[in-house]
């Protein structure tokens, strides 16, 4: 590996503009797995652990609930041979588990249930309904939780159902679907807390405040992490159906909402509803724009760009101080479809949460749904992918993630500044690389707000990095960035920054910062700010050289030869598959979330057709695949054609 890179570097040397990056290849940068190890929990053969809930009991035992309705208590879960005891069974698709005052609490589809072992035989004998809520019986009516509030009350969330004819449209058929419910500590009452949820699979209690994660879907351009205050409306209109009920904390009606955002309920000639699809080159709305007219609307504290930082976000879990080294006090968010965990750091600016999200650890065996901390500081990870598929192709799993006490070179966090961002590192940087503007790249984008499933990224713009100031200790870099846009997602990429020690690259070079507010305050004085840009210097030099050559030699322009279109190889399109997030769902040979490229090749679409399908997919052509592909018109035609040629080469 290293040799190959050295060789390639030699060939590239005379041509490359980004000379500064080359030494990176001389030292192979460690990866996620060199710091965070995934381990299994051994369980009796045949134990089906489609994990829906995880909680660690005060005695260190691990409580595990499953989609098939079992609850296990695992004794000595971090030992060589954990002991599994079936504590309860027969419950309805349990998607959350919590321990409180000697009892386990879980959300089944239709109720919050308290499980108590009164005779101490190791099995629950009381299955008490704490609070039951209505259901219509639609498959998608899952319920999640509970998360315990500091006062011992419970938060539980509910998915929407989908329409019959409009099978794509989330709808709330009975009260509190698409809502967050707040159930009193004694279960005697339920206070509808907030609505706008579509598929609120991940709840999180951070510093006593409630957060939830959402997936891409109708009205949800991408997943993200929302701060859920009482009376919030987080974006999907289905739950607005019930704001007229007396105990609703908000009064916004579906009619008022639909007057602002077109439902796109359009029928064809046969009188059947047409599924709304993304329209390229349309005038579109963005969620934050609606805040002016819909004050209840709350945009994500942190967007988790779809396909990059997950495709179906799940549990939100704070990292206790002391766990996972430099990341204590930060937040982890799981992802089902990509079988991975992201890291989120939030800050409050002008009274609202916002912050940055990074990739953290991928490679789990199935879809990451739940996480809980073991007493030894490692992380239990509960997994399932049944019905949706995931990058880890096992159907279920209970694994553990442990830190090996080595500090990875990472952006610890990114903070918003009045004129840019301050990046904090886990280890001191190599100052030369960090003071080079060519090491930084910032872009911003956002999503449409419409009843279409998902959204392409829109309004993409580059943000020029004007200067950088690296702190004395090499642990911080403050960058001055042009064209900051409020509410936009700013992806900050540090491909060129190196660690002082070993000249490592960052394990994850990109952070996605959701800039809900630009902080007030002093801008950075230009004194002591580096504006050096090695790329620009090199480009200028190259231009000068070229001018010299041109002056001495007549141009020998080759005539264009009509060559057969080039067929691209995997290695050639790999960066594109990553950039446009194709690889989040597609694998060359095997079914992941979407079909294998090989399977697509078998359909014998022309390259042009594949481009069209990238821009406007037809999920109805792929029965048996549960998750729809979002439209991706942001993929430029030239790149889409390269991808198409690669796909068709697999035939």
């Amino acid at each position, binding site marked *: 590996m290293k040799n190959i890179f050295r060789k390639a570097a030699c060939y590239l040397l005379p041509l490359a503009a980004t000379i500064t990056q080359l030494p990176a290849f001389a030292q192979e940068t460690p990866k996620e797995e060199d710091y965070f190890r995934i381990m299994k929990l051994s369980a009796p053969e045949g134990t089906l652990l489609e994990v829906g809930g995880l909680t660690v009991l005060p005695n260190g035992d691990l409580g595990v609930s499953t989609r098939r309705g079992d609850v296990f208590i695992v004794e000595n879960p971090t030992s060589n041979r954990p002991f599994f005891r079936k504590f309860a*069974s027969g419950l*309805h698709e349990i998607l959350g588990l919590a321990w409180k005052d000697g009892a386990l609490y879980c959300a*089944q589809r239709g109720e919050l249930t*308290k499980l108590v072992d009164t005779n101490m035989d190791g099995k629950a004998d009381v299955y008490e*309904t704490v609070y039951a809520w209505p259901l219509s019986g639609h498959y998608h009516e899952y319920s999640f939780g509970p998360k315990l509030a500091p006062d011992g009350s419970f938060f539980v969330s509910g998915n929407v159902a*989908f329409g019959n004819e409009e*099978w794509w449209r989330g709808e709330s058929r009975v009260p509190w679907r698409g809502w967050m419910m707040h159930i009193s500590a004694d279960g005697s009452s339920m206070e509808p807390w907030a609505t706008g949820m579509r598929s609120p699979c991940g709840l999180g209690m951070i510093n006593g405040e409630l957060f939830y994660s959402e997936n891409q879907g109708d009205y949800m351009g991408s997943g993200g992490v929302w701060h859920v205050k009482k009376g919030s409306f987080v974006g999907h209109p289905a739950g607005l159906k019930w704001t007229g009920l007396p105990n609703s904390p908000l009064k916004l009606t579906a009619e008022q909402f639909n007057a602002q955002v077109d439902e796109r309920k359009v029928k064809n000639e046969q009188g059947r509803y047409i599924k709304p699809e993304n329209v390229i080159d349309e005038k579109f709305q963005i969620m934050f724009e609606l805040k002016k007219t819909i004050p209840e609307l709350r945009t994500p504290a942190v967007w988790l760009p779809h396909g990059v930082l997950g495709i179906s976000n799940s549990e939100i879990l704070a990292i206790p101080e002391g766990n996972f080294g430099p990341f204590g006090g930060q937040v982890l968010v799981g992802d089902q479809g990509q079988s991975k965990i992201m890291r989120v750091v939030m800050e409050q600016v002008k009274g609202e949460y916002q912050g940055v999200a990074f990739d953290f650890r991928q490679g789990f065996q199935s879809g990451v749904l739940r996480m809980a901390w073991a007493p030894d500081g490692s992380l239990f990870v509960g997994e399932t992918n049944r*019905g949706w598929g995931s990058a880890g192709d096992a159907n279920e799993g209970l694994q553990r993630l442990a830190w090996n006490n080595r500090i990875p070179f990472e952006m610890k966090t990114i903070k918003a500044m009045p004129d840019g961002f301050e990046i904090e590192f886990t280890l001191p940087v190599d100052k030369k690389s960090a003071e080079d503007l060519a090491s930084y790249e910032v872009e911003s984008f956002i999503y449409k707000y419409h009843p279409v499933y998902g959204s392409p990224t829109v309004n993409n713009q580059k943000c020029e990095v004007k200067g950088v100031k690296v702190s004395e200790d090499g642990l911080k870099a403050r960058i001055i960035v042009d064209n900051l846009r409020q509410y936009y997602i700013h992806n900050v990429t540090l491909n060129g920054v190196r660690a002082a020690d070993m000249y490592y690259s960052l394990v994850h070079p990109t952070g996605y910062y959701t800039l809900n507010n630009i902080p007030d305050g002093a801008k950075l004085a230009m004194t002591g700010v580096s504006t050096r840009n090695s790329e620009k210097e090199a480009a200028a030099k190259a231009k000068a050289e070229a001018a010299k050559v041109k002056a001495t030699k007549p141009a020998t322009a080759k005539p264009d030869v009509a060559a057969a279109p080039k067929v691209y190889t995997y290695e050639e399109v790999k960066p594109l598959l990553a950039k446009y997030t194709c690889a989040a769902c597609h694998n060359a040979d095997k079914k992941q979330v979407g079909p294998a490229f090989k399977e697509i090749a078998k359909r014998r679409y022309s390259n042009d057709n594949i481009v069209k399908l990238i821009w406007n997919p037809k999920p*109805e052509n792929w029965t048996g695949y*549960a998750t729809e592909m979002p439209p991706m018109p942001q993929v430029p035609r030239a790149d889409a054609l390269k991808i198409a040629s690669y796909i068709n080469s697999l035939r």
Partner: protein
Amino acid sequence: MKSMSILLSMVLRSKSNFFGRSMIGLLCACGAGLAIPQQAMAQAKQLPLQDFSSFKDVGKSWQIVGDVNTEQGKANAFKTAGGTGILVNLPGKKVHGQDLFSNFEHGDLDLELDYMMAEGANSGIYLQGRYELQLLDSWGVTSPKPGDNGGIYERWDDSKPEGKKGYQGYAPRQNVSKAPGLWQHLKVSFQAPRFDVAGKKIENAKMLRVELNGVLIHENIELMGATRGAIGGNEVASGPLRIQGDHGAVAFKNISLKQFDKQRPELTGLEFKAYKGRYNRDNDYTKLKPEAAGTVKTLTANASHLSQEYTLVYKGTLNVKEAGEYTIETNAQGGQGIITLDGKPVSNRGRVTLPAGNVPVGLIYSRSGDWGNPTLGLNITGPGIRTFYVGDVITPDDTDPIIVDASANTILRSFSDVPGYGKVTHAVSVGSPLQVHYTYDLDHGMVVQVWRGSFLETTPMWHDRGNGTSRPQGALQRLGKPFFTLGKLANEQATWVADSTGSGYRPKGYVLDEQDRPTFNYFIFGATVSDKVRVTENGHGISREISVSNDPGGLYAKLAEGAQIESIGKDLYLVDGKAYFLQLQETSGAKPIVRDAAGVKELIVPVRGKLSYSILF
């Protein structure tokens, strides 16, 4: 088939179109089994039971009556009432019972009937007088044998030593037998043995399908020879229907038969031409140059070397021996099949009237990609002709069913379907190793259904995303669309409360006893209710004990509803056309009331602290 279509509609209702469509494929696959008697077009003939005109040499034990009831504790006895419509056998000390024979003979036959066993009674239905399907009071048996109700009785070899004489009997897949005194429903599809012109048997008789009380208990069982007690030592192409009458009291009604005695049409002279690309209706295939051409003996989607997108155009002849109305449907997988008869497309779900003689057949198979196994076949049903299939072998569904049995007391929550109502969304199904199970509706404090046999299938709930629904596997007795068991009535005639508004109804879940059996708790009208449901120790049904504290007064319990509720003894009722018994045990002195309510009967009783009763079925 029935259960599959329920699954299909359920899935279509509740899931995205993806799953729905894949399920359609699955349904098609199932529709192409060996035979689908339900689709048979032969007219069902109801045996008139006004008299014995369908039978011959009727012995004295047989009677035509208008009603029958068992008497509790009395073996082999019925109380009868005058009238017609019910055929009953009442052997006694003086009247020796004897077998009943039809005055017609049959070969291939679909038979459907209702029957009722007397307590401890034994009877049987002999197809062609030779192959016995056992009828027995097998109420509560957990490990059924060939000699139990619904078993295919064993054959017998006298030359073998004692204890080894019986062989080749087939126990039912599960025991779904109801109590003596209740009507049981039986459906049989029988295929007679085949003989060559010399009279040599070339194919054994078969029980293609036997359904008891709505549950498939045998499928495609080959009968190597006649069972014990057959008439004659031989096997024949046709023989009389025979009902065993010398072993006990048994009653029958609604006997209907379909005979399949006509010759199948034959698909002959199949020639194909194979073209590249999917079928395009704008193409004139007679003018296109085929990639391959030839003849085949059996209809197939694999006639040529082409493998991905291709079109096969078949020409052939359907040699129709019996004129009449036919149903001819293509079964195509991995592509599409189109059939024309006499140059005309077949529509109206494949229904066509055909004359005897040769009918030109055109068939097109369009292979649309590389998914699925290319498969082409025809399901043909005709007058006196049971549905049969010709063509490629069928690829089975690749979904493994998920079955939950109750080898110990087992609880499983799910959605549960109630026809005409929708889903019970807070349903708790409780299974017992006694093979009696029930579903409790936590939204109404009601037992919505009881069943016997196997516990649950959870494929709809646990395969793929699932739709949250489980399905009882055994013989199901529904107890009505969900209603509140307890209500507060101003008087005995007041309408039963339909919804929970104002009732303060609130479920509190359940508590398990030492054997993991639940007692349900809830609040209603300020009362605290405990609802203890138990499977009776003999497996005869369930008992229910409702205890109410903080009684607000004016509470009633609705115990049953049905088209009829017959009072047949002290605190004993027969509900809904003798579908189940309801036995009151403890009413704390309150008197039960049977009353009319919107076209049905209701059994209600005032609640005074404690109430208990059993459902026996």
